[in-house]
């Protein structure tokens, strides 16, 4: 890395968080390029990046913007019942069936443990809107998965 430990640490943390956060928005295949683009921006604007109140949310937006050429419905790996026995197979189709905003809020808040505020800034919406999308998204997920269970 560089000779600037502070920015290095931030970029490492950002990489880790974006690896987890981005797939639901741009898909697993597009995520690396999107992350690289975001990190490049952060490095090029490192003084500004270091001063951000929510640097990961900011980079998330940059990365999603870069990855918007990916398919609108991101490609996520199916649940392997052998490797992930505790995860419902219907979770992924249900996730992909959500609207992009619902999917991203559900993913960022519940899968990535982002706060409402961090999520709101990443998505460019209000914190209360995060709650709205989250509630609707989780409801739809439950309905979809329960429906699979009922027919399974």
């Amino acid at each position, binding site marked *: 890395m560089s000779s600037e430990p502070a920015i290095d640490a931030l970029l490492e943390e950002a990489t880790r968080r974006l690896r987890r956060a981005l797939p639901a928005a741009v898909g697993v295949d597009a995520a690396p390029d999107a992350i690289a683009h975001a990190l490049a921006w952060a490095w090029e604007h490192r003084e500004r990046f270091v001063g951000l109140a929510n640097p990961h949310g900011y980079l998330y937006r940059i990365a999603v*913007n870069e990855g918007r050429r990916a398919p609108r419905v991101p490609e996520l790996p199916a649940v392997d019942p052998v490797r992930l026995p505790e995860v419902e197979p219907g979770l992924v189709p249900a996730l992909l069936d959500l609207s992009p905003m619902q999917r991203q809020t559900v993913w960022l808040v519940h899968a990535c443990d982002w706060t409402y505020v961090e999520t709101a800034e990443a998505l460019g919406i209000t914190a209360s809107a995060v709650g709205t999308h989250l509630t609707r998204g989780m409801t739809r997920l439950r309905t979809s998965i329960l429906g699979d269970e009922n027919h399974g």
Partner: protein
Amino acid sequence: MVDHVDLERQLRRYADHVEGAVGETAVEPVPTRPRSPRLAVAAVVALVAAIGLAFVVVDRDSGSDVDIDPARDGSLEPTAQASDSNAEGDGGVSAETPPEPKLMPAGEIPPAPLSPRSSTLTIRIGDEVVVWGGDRDALDEVYGDGAVYDIATNEWRAMAESPIPLTDDTPTAIDLEDRLFVSRRQHAAYYSVADDVWTELPSLSGELIRELRHAPEIDSIFALGARGVYQFDLSTDSWSELGGRGDSIEWTGEKLVSVTGDPGGSFPVDTWTASTGWVEETTIETGVSQVAIDTGLVDGEVWIVGYDMTVDVWDPVTGEQRSLPPLPIDFTEGVPRVFVSSAAGPDVVLVDREPGLVTWSGEGWEVRPRLDIAYGATLDSDGTGGGAWWGYWFDGGTPDNALVVSQVPTPGDPREIVLGSVVLELAPEEQLIEMGVGERDDGFEPWAVISAEIGRCRLDDAIGERVDGTVDIVLGSNVISVTCDDPEAPRRLAPRLRSVDVDDERTAYILGQSLGTPDGLVPVSTVVGLFADTAMATLRNEGLVPVTEFRVVPFGDPQVGVVLAQAPIGFTEVEPGTQVVITVGEAGPDPDQ
């Protein structure tokens, strides 16, 4: 059974797996890449959002029925796609292909680093919006500064100083993908958005450029001036004088068409190519003393809007002519600005006054509700939003300082609408509605046009009150009773209604078509506008837990003790026992003490 906690756990576990999949691919910062080539379209940026939504706003200053356009059914319909709208000397732009749709960040748009002004160049380039120039007649000021708004980051940045001299003419521009060709009066310059660099170009001495048309096939830009037509060679950055005449020009892809209005009641139509020079093609007889207000290329045909809103169509290939019915526009108080844009969709005419947006269905003109009262009809290049083609008003950071970058709607997605600087997020089952207030002897009766089908309806649980000279509509409860006057079949509805203050003078009303409540969840009532004790009782009655926060308001303000905001918002369906935070107005210190 998948309960809430279990679902969270499953999401985290799956995310662990996905993160690992991404981590198997090396991620290293790459050198900054040049900006992706911008799509060669310039969407003109508007003040208000997607066309096709029910018209929304109540002017709270009105003491009687508000004259607003009829509501639509709330469904979003792309109205046009790639705009091949043509640049004019009034701030219009030329477009080639549509940009990718981009979500507008919801919430407040930060003030632009620009002073109040109108008649700016306003042009969208990919995810950025360039706003430059303009003037302020009231102060007799003209401006040569500008700013670029980044849609992705919701930030402004100031533009470098321009070499274009200050004049009181509205600038116009052509998007050349890697740079803009900007003109103002007789001056021209390139502007690189990526590099924030201006490059001065030769000017047309003594001329006044009224229209620009991009001719990419011959790497040229045509300019219509007061004295004739000019060709700017983009490969040599030089002008050639072509002579000719015209009120409006159009590039067909093969030849330049110039339409001139004749006081005798006709449109002489000339064409130009490098090999033929000017050719007098035909004369379109209209019988009315004419000026060609604007032309547009629609499916290869040249549409000509005349002084009295006549519309004639000429096919440059076959020479065939036909006349359409006049535009349904009242011009008794003067001829409005008209802007023809085909935008690869329904044929569109934009007008800078009522009705604002008119499309040709093939059988007749259809009027779309005008969304932007003050600044003209709007149309975005991807067909779902709009753009003020002659610029719009900046008010230095007030709610008038706003942009709209439209969103291509997808059924089921929440929709975003911008009014001023407030962004409204609508749930799929919600629509903006038209509200009005009818004055009665004993007060005011709120009414709404719920949909084109249902028509005008009374809101039985709402009150219109006159407060300090304005009329406020107070909603009695979240779920209101609506009685619609249908002469054939009166109906009663129980939609959910919420309101959002757009600014000090406007309130947007949003109607929710209830989809029912999933088992186990409760809908949060809209309590904004209620007194705190009533709001808390309402929420407790729903099995929710109200939590109070306070916001200081001036001493004696009517908002003391009133709920100003809530989270979650009304319509949200939550589990019983969920906390609802209400923000209540608290009186500030008594200024007399």
